[in-house]
């Protein structure tokens, strides 16, 4: 898209018929649809999300129904398409149901951190000066710890449970989002178009809404999409450690933990939740990369 636009520059006549939609996001969308990697990653995510969302209707069996006689059946057993786990529950059903929680714990903290972090970052970056210093130094404290350790510590302090791990993960991501939002805002704030807007007598609120937000949201959004996979893996890790979802609730990280003991008996079954975590986070990352390049059409 960007190349065709630039090619039309020297000959204005060639672009005398402007494209019907010139909205920035439509251009980005069009760009994404032409990117095979984005399409593939999007398709995989659509399948996984669809299977998870529709699990109550699509799952072949009850994910909680255990049977001591049918423990650790291999993949492809009759009635158990993906085998069964250490308590004889249907793996396929559990993986589908587990995706609901795993995806939720991947997306919700990132969304929350995106909102909170962008607001704080905009404030710190636009106001600048002392306020900026205070906010950024406080957040640096969070930065001193590796994110896994921080998530485990906050989650441990709050106590196990899903809502607590959501809070813990949000707290882990907020400083990272703030830092990106703050640095982009600080850059944008110094540009001449902000000064031109100030010259026009616009209020700070209007300038932030029209001129700053539009230019900050993009890079922060791209950064946040990259956090989706991290969040999912951290959430799975918390569940694996017993700090997140509690058994018998199906969740990929927790399933990985409970199937750990079966790794010598039936390694393929034990690897399934891990494989799903891997595929989903790779798909998120690839999509984030594509979004990043699709959004970079400004120059």
């Amino acid at each position: 898209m960007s190349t065709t636009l630039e090619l039309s520059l020297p000959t204005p006549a060639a672009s005398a018929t402007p494209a019907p939609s010139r909205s920035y996001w439509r251009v980005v969308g069009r760009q994404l649809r032409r990117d095979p990697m984005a399409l593939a990653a999007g398709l995989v995510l659509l399948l996984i999300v669809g299977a998870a969302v529709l699990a109550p209707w699509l799952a072949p069996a009850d994910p909680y129904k255990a049977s001591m006689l049918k423990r650790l059946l291999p993949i492809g057993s009759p009635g158990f398409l993906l085998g069964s786990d250490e308590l004889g529950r249907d793996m396929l059903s559990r993986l589908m149901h587990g995706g609901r929680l795993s995806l939720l714990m991947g997306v919700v903290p990132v969304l929350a951190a995106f909102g909170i972090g962008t607001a704080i970052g905009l404030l710190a970056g636009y106001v600048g000066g002392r306020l900026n210093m205070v906010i950024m130094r406080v957040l640096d404290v969070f930065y001193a710890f590796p994110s896994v350790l921080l998530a485990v510590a906050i989650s441990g302090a709050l106590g196990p449970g899903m809502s607590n791990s959501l809070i813990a993960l949000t707290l882990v991501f907020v400083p990272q989002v703030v830092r990106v939002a703050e640095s982009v805002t600080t850059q944008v704030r110094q540009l001449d178009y902000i000064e031109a807007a100030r010259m026009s007598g616009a209020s700070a609120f209007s300038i932030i809404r029209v001129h700053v937000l539009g230019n900050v949201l993009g890079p922060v959004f791209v950064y946040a999409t990259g956090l989706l996979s991290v969040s999912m893996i951290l959430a799975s890790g918390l569940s694996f450690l017993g700090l997140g979802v509690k058994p018998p609730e199906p969740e990929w990280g927790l399933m990985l933990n409970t199937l750990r003991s079966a790794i010598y008996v039936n390694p393929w079954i034990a690897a399934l939740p891990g494989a799903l975590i891997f595929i989903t986070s790779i798909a998120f990352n690839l999509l984030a990369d594509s979004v990043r390049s699709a959004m970079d059409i400004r120059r």
Partner: protein
Amino acid sequence: MNSAPLPPSPVHDRGSPAQPLLVVRDLKKHFPVRGGPLERTKKFVHAVDGVSFSVPKGKTLGIVGESGCGKSTTARLIARLMQADSGSMVFDGEGVDEFGGIRLKEFRRNLQMVFQDSFASLNPRLTIAETIAYGPRVHGMPAAEAKRQAHDLLARVGLAPAQFASRYPHELSGGQRQRVNIARALAFDPRLVILDEAVAALDKSVQAQVLNLLQELKAERQLTYLFISHDLHVVHYISDYVMVMYLGQVVETGPVERIYGQAAHPYTRALLSAVPSMDPDRRTESSPLAGDPPNPINPPSGCRFRDRCPHAHPVCEARTPALIGIAGEPAHQAACHLNDPASGHPGALPETQA
């Protein structure tokens, strides 16, 4: 708060035609330099140090000087993008932001600025029509009217609205973007436009087109320009008056032909002789000025130009030369002891005025 309908632009003078549009008095801006273990403010960069001038209505005042002499800072101080440490401004007879004077918001509407970096001065996420319409919309103009006005302005600066209105800045060339910036500045129907190196980044042919556009607009809308540039040719072409700055101070000011023909300050003469001449008989054989301007943190005492001046004398160190009128042409002023027979400078003889 609605701006008046577009062409023809009404003349909204408040003072008489002889009243200068803008009078600036003793503008000062010192930037603190932080240093030391406790980040104590120790020193100040004397970016603008007591600048006074006036711009007559409908004229163009060119401001020239080396990089770092305070040209752009002066522009930003006037536009109130930066707060001055001291100094006052009178806009068409009314004190800016003073009791009983013109309110800051009203002043800003009457003054617009065109920046050097045509790309950085346009929001990459807005179409150019949106960019132009933004200011008027902020002041309450209905969207449809603002859009129509934006299209009219685009047409006026030579960009066909049907073709350009919905484009983004990255789809335009530098000259086209600068036209958009000019159109945006005109959206308020301003009376004073500050052009801060507005054509410096453009190549010569585009520069000429934009300069001609500026000249046309000035005549059409009774605009007054403050034209900041380091390009002496361009300033010669567009200006009616010229002000030469050195290290945050005005060293010489006067009508353009006087400055270019009979410069009274050694710095101005050095600056002008540095311009490459097209005439091989008038080639410059030696560099007129050596070295860099002194550090603005500790400007020299007395005349700030003295350590680079070929006519320097102890009196230049002892006394700061005032900006005084040159005999025979009061509009032409220079801050040099050579022009003041009472200064005690041995070179201050009548013939130096020639």
